[in-house]
């Protein structure tokens, strides 16, 4: 063996191998629907906005997905969110809270469980805040509360509608009473938006429970729920243990809340963006926009201008 075979060749091989992914058995090409348990090809699932093509089960999606599917293309940019003191109680159970946070941050590539963007829906200015259930169950601590307050303040500054997509197991226990007071802090943010005459619309997605439901999620001007979403205050298990009875079918599902008067509508994900656009248009454009004037003279012929994407980069 010379240096060529013992050193250079493996190096080259390593370089080549690094460049081309190993032909592994594709693991993530198929997803199983948690509701009907049928297999769905990943591309079909993405094309279907992560709604099961067999049973219409709405799977959980994160902030990036909502920004892309709800805001006018090219109109939006993420908001920079305030930093808060990390782990104020120095909480530790079987794990350190700081370690749980780091794991969640590595998994989601996000700072915490709420992200926000400013953009447009149907051409109207909107601040969109989205909770991420993947981040510690979407639980609300100081970072979520402070991000919510900052997003609402941006809506005030921009005279924009405030739209919030919820997904949360409730308060973040690891922040103790500091997480409890976020219920009051987020409520204050909502009150300010409403007092400024701006619409505050809540989109409730699976699941929205506990302290989030019992504060800003139930204070919307309009409540929209995704089909099948679990929405409630107390967890089903807690209720079952307390009353020692079986829960009625469909208990705490979006349709149950609609029937009990807690949400205005249950809207399929495919119609969500159009519904938001229509609501905002009805609330913010009480007088219809003047109809575009037909050009009377057609000469001279000019090259048609490329239509600009609705909205403009924020």
């Amino acid at each position, binding site marked *: 063996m010379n240096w060529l075979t013992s050193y250079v060749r493996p190096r080259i091989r390593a370089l080549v191998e690094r460049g081309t992914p190993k032909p592994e058995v594709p693991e993530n090409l198929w997803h199983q629907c948690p509701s009907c348990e049928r297999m769905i090809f990943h591309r079909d699932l993405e094309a279907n906005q992560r709604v099961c093509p067999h049973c219409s089960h709405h799977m959980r999606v994160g902030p990036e997905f909502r920004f892309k599917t709800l805001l006018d293309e090219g109109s939006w940019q993420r908001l920079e969110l305030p930093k*808060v*003191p990390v782990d*104020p*109680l120095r*909480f*530790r*159970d*079987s794990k350190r809270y700081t370690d749980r946070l780091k794991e969640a941050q590595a998994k989601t590539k996000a700072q915490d469980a709420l992200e926000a963007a400013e953009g447009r829906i149907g051409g109207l200015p909107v601040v969109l805040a989205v909770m991420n259930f993947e981040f510690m169950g979407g639980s609300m601590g*100081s970072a979520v*509360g*402070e991000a919510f*307050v900052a997003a609402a303040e941006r809506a005030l500054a921009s005279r924009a509608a405030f739209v919030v997509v919820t997904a949360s197991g409730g*308060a973040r*226990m*690891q*922040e*103790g*009473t*500091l*997480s*409890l*007071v976020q*219920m*009051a*802090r987020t*409520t*204050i943010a*909502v*009150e300010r938006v409403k007092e400024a005459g701006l619409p505050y619309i809540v989109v409730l997605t699976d699941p929205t429970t*506990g*302290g989030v*439901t*019992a*504060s*800003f*999620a*139930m*204070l919307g001007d309009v409540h929209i729920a995704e089909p099948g979403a679990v929405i*409630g*205050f*107390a*967890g089903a298990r*807690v*209720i079952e243990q*307390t*009353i020692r*009875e079986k*829960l*009625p079918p469909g*208990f*705490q599902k979006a349709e149950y809340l609609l029937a*009990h*008067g*807690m949400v205005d509508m249950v809207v399929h994900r495919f119609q969500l963006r159009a519904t938001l656009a229509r609501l905002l248009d009805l609330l913010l454009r009480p007088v219809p926009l003047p109809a575009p004037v037909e050009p009377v003279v057609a000469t001279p012929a000019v090259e048609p201008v490329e239509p600009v994407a609705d909205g403009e980069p924020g």
Partner: protein
Amino acid sequence: MSTLLDFEKPIAELEGKVKELRHLQNGSELDLSEEIARLESRAAKLLAATYAKLTAWQKAQVARHPDRPRFKDYVAELVADFTPLAGDRAFADDAAIQGGLGRFRGRSVMVIGQEKGADTEERVRHNFGMARPEGYRKAVRLMRLAERFGLPVLTFVDTPGAHPGIDAEERGQAEAIARSIACCLELEVPIVSVIVGEGGSGGAIALAAADRVLMLEHSIYSVISPEGCAAILWRAAEKAPEAAEALKFTAQDLLGLGLVDEVVPEPLGGAHRGRQTTIRAVGEAIERHLAELSGRDGPALVAARREKFLAMGRPTEG
């Protein structure tokens, strides 16, 4: 003492011996007074030492003590002409939340609070202080009534939490709590809250988003019960003492974190050993805070209240 907490047993033993000796002393030639005095002083010292360093878990037990003064006791002692008002005007009257008009130190006020009940029958009737939506909606109605007539609102918080049940969910428990918090934060009259026992989660803050939040020395105010937290995070209910410590829910912890405004001292051995003293101390604290708040106009009160809550948990500047 009708109910004895586990960690109070050594104190009770000494007190029992004192009683026995006193009994012996009666009609006896022997002079036991020295021995009695010695034991009494030991019992008092032990009580002081125990209560000076209660753990968070022990405080939770004191906060839940059945002999601790409750809403009714505070109203009976501090509020004249109390006139209870009932019902949410939509569904029912919820006995878990009591409220009404009355005079505190001569001035008309609205008093609202959870009532846990004194004995088994009462506890069932008051649902152990766990309110349903109609309870929070009644609270909102009473707060709005107070506002219309410029009356300050006093709330006494003592609840394990909001009632978890099918009926409560059906009638919008979450929405009712959210509206109650919002009402507290919009109210154009002074609102002073005292956490007198157990401040359990959303069911507590529904009445405690106030200008001033006071806590009794051995009361607790938490996002979840130590038992519930232990079951979820430790997956073991017997880890409740550890969870209690970690949650930092004692009055002293929360004062340090800037989440409450004042801690009202309890008599030695807890509020259940000196009910009148406790109630009087609470009354004096409320009076002081009401005096500070009076004379401010509605919008100024609301603005200051909101600023106070928005500042919570933020890094302190300078």
